[in-house]
C-alpha cells in the first residue's frame, strides 16, 4: 500500500499538498546562501488583490497551508492583511522570517491569530556562527523576536536552521535553544541555489558530517525537516517522511511576481511552469503545464540505476544536481556513497547554471 501511495504522489495530485510562496524579494539581510538571491523588491510584485486571488484558488483547491517566505515577507505592507485573508479562507500559514519586524505588538497580534506558524531563521546557535552567514547583528535580532514570541505566549514557534559545515557541530545547542523556548527545531538542507551557488562548496556538510547528521536525525525523530534530507536515507533505515522529490508533483513555488516554479530551490527559467497571471491562473499552471507533466512522468534512474540505494534516496535532490552542473539523472552532489563527489570532479563549475539575482535593481525596458 505504501509504495502505491508513493507512486501516486510521483504521478502528481490535482492540487499541491503544500506550496511555498515568496511574497517579496525585498530583504534587509543578504544571507550568503539565500536561495532566491533576495535583496530588492521587484516593482512588478503581485498586488494585494492579485495575491488574494491566488489565495482564493488555493482555498478552492483545498491546499491546507502555504509556506510564506521571501525575501523577508513581513516587509510587505499588506503582509498581515494577506495572512488574515488566507487563514480566513482555510489556508493555514507558515511563514519564515529573520525576526526583524517581530516586536512585542506584532508578537501579540500573531498570538491572537489561529493557524499561523512562525519560523524564525538562524544559522548558528551562537552569534559568531550565525552572523558569518546572515550578517552582523542578525543573531541578536532573531533572538529578540523569539523572546517577544515567548513573552506573548505564542506557543511552539519554530526555529529554522539551514545545516552547514560550520553549524553542524551545534545541533545539540540548537535543540537546547528550542527546548528553552518551548519551540520546535526545524532543520533543512543547504541547496546550491541563488547565492548558495557561490557558497555551497564552502558551506555544505562534509561526508562525515552527513553521517553524523543522519544519526542525529534518527535519534531526534521529532525534528521537522520538510523531508529535505531524503538523500541521507541511503545510509540505512529511511528518515521519517515520504522520501521523494516532490517538485511539481506535490509541491511548487510561487515567486513574488507570480511565476510558478517546480520547487523553492529551482528559481531558474528551466523550471518555470507558468505564471499565476496567465489565463487559468495558478490552477491551470499546476494541472496543465508541460514542465509539471514531465516531472510527473516516471523518471529514469540513469547513472544511479545500478546502485542498491536508489530506492532509498531516489537519486537525491534535483535542484542540488542542477545548480552544481550535474545531470538530473545522475547522483546527488552529496550522495552518501561518494558518487556525487566523483561526478563533481567531471562537472565544470563555470558551466553550472545560475538563477536570477534579485539583489540588484530590476532593469525596466524604457519605451522610446
Amino acid at each position: 500500500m505504501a509504495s502505491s501511495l508513493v507512486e501516486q504522489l510521483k504521478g502528481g495530485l490535482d492540487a499541491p499538498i503544500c506550496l511555498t510562496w515568496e511574497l517579496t524579494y525585498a530583504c534587509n539581510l543578504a544571507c550568503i546562501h539565500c536561495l532566491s538571491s533576495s535583496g530588492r523588491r521587484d516593482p512588478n510584485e503581485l498586488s494585494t488583490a492579485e495575491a488574494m486571488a491566488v489565495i482564493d484558488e488555493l482555498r478552492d483547491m483545498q491546499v491546507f497551508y502555504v509556506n510564506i517566505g521571501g525575501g523577508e515577507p513581513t516587509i510587505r505592507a499588506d503582509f498581515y492583511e494577506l495572512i488574515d485573508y488566507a487563514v480566513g479562507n482555510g489556508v493555514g500559514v507558515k511563514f519564515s522570517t529573520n525576526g526583524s519586524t517581530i516586536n512585542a505588538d506584532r508578537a501579540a497580534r500573531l498570538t491572537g491569530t489561529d493557524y499561523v506558524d512562525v519560523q524564525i531563521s538562524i544559522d548558528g546557535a551562537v552569534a559568531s556562527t550565525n552572523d558569518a552567514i546572515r550578517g552582523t547583528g542578525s543573531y541578536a535580532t532573531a533572538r529578540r523576536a523569539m523572546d517577544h514570541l515567548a513573552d506573548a505566549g505564542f506557543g511552539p514557534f519554530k526555529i529554522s536552521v539551514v545545516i552547514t559545515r560550520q553549524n553542524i557541530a551545534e545541533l545539540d545547542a540548537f535543540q537546547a535553544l528550542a527546548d528553552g523556548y518551548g519551540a520546535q527545531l526545524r532543520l533543512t538542507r543547504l541547496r546550491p541555489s541563488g547565492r548558495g551557488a557561490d557558497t555551497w562548496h564552502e558551506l555544505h556538510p562534509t561526508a562525515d558530517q552527513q553521517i553524523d547528521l543522519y544519526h542525529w536525525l534518527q535519534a531526534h525523530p521529532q525534528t521537522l525537516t520538510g523531508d529535505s534530507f531524503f538523500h541521507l536515507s541511503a545510509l540505512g533505515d529511511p528518515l521519517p517522511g515520504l522520501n521523494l522529490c516532490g517538485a511539481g508533483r506535490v509541491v511548487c513555488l510561487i515567486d513574488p511576481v507570480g511565476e510558478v516554479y517546480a520547487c523553492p530551490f529551482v528559481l531558474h527559467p528551466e523550471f518555470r511552469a507558468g505564471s499565476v497571471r496567465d489565463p487559468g491562473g495558478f490552477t491551470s499552471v499546476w494541472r496543465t503545464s508541460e514542465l509539471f507533466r514531465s516531472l510527473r512522468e516516471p523518471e529514469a534512474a540513469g547513472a544511479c540505476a545500478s546502485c542498491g540505494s536508489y530506492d532509498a534516496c531516489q537519486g537525491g535532490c534535483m535542484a542540488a544536481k542542477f545548480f552544481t552542473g550535474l545531470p538530473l539523472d545522475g547522483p546527488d552532489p552529496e550522495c552518501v556513497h561518494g558518487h556525487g563527489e566523483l561526478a563533481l570532479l567531471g562537472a565544470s563549475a563555470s558551466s553550472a547554471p545560475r538563477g536570477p539575482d534579485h539583489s540588484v535593481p530590476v532593469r525596466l525596458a524604457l519605451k522610446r
Partner: protein
Amino acid sequence: MVALRPEPFGALAYHYGNRRLTFVRSPDLVEVVRSLGAHETVDDALSANNVDEKRWRAFHRALDALAGSEVIRRRG
C-alpha cells in the same frame, strides 16, 4: 478542526490544530471515516458501508492510527 481532501488513493487529512497531515490510504476508509459520526460504533459504520468482515481488523487498525494522529477522536 480536520479537513479531508479527496484523492485517488483515498484522502489527505489535515488537522489545523496540530498541523499534522495524514494520508488516508483507501477510498472506502474515507467513506467509513466520514460516516463515523452517524453511527454508534465503528462496527456499525463498517457494516453500513458494506465493508467485508474479513477487512474489519485492518480497518480497526487504520482507524486506531487515525485516532493517534487526532484525525478522529474516540467518543467519551
